[in-house]
């Protein structure tokens, strides 16, 4: 499982992708993914907001992650 990072999330983690090996410790839902990331990188929890996108759509915490999903962390957007 691969998580794409952008903007300040990329700076906090120090790279543009996070890999989770299959099996133990791999988050099964968006909620678990948030918890895993926020405990590994507490600065993510200090952002104004942190959305998650799966396959280029904003998703809710209840969503179950599937193999092959394109998953991205969306810190507060600031286009325009």
């Amino acid at each position, binding site marked *: 499982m691969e998580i794409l990072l952008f*903007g300040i999330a990329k700076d906090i983690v120090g790279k543009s992708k996070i890999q989770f090996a299959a099996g133990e410790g791999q988050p099964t839902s968006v909620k678990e993914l948030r918890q895993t990331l926020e405990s590994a990188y507490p600065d993510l929890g200090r952002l104004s907001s942190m959305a998650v*996108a799966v396959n280029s759509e904003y998703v809710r915490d209840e969503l179950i992650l599937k193999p092959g999903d394109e998953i991205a962390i969306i*810190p*507060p*957007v600031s286009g*325009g």
Partner: protein
Amino acid sequence: MNKTIIEIVDSLEVSKVYAELSDPQSGGICVFVGTVREVTQGETVVALEFETYRNMALKEMEKIALEAVEKWQLNKVVIRHAIGAKKVEDPVVVVGASAPHRDACFEACRYLIDTLKERVPIWKKEIFKNKTVWVSAHP
């Protein structure tokens, strides 16, 4: 015929937007251009740097454009955003709406830029002399 033009580009060419929005069924065209301001909260900006999650940004921009077409019965919509390094006075975003009457295009144009700023995954980093700041990142 396709009513929307959605693009993410390295360098924004604002002068072509009139031709893109011009339509025989339209009586009004509104265009908003967002540009790089020199001073933000009392501090002088050296440059801005924009990055995007391109696939998702294009998808969100298309959704916003189609929502506006539906709501205000627009004939044409343009949403075009620049990414990369930008300096003071550079244009960074152009949105435009073309409608039979002016009320619709004014309202639609405002909706396009306001909604883009809320939803589209594009990030702006302000580069000052002594620091860099990701805009809106912290409360």
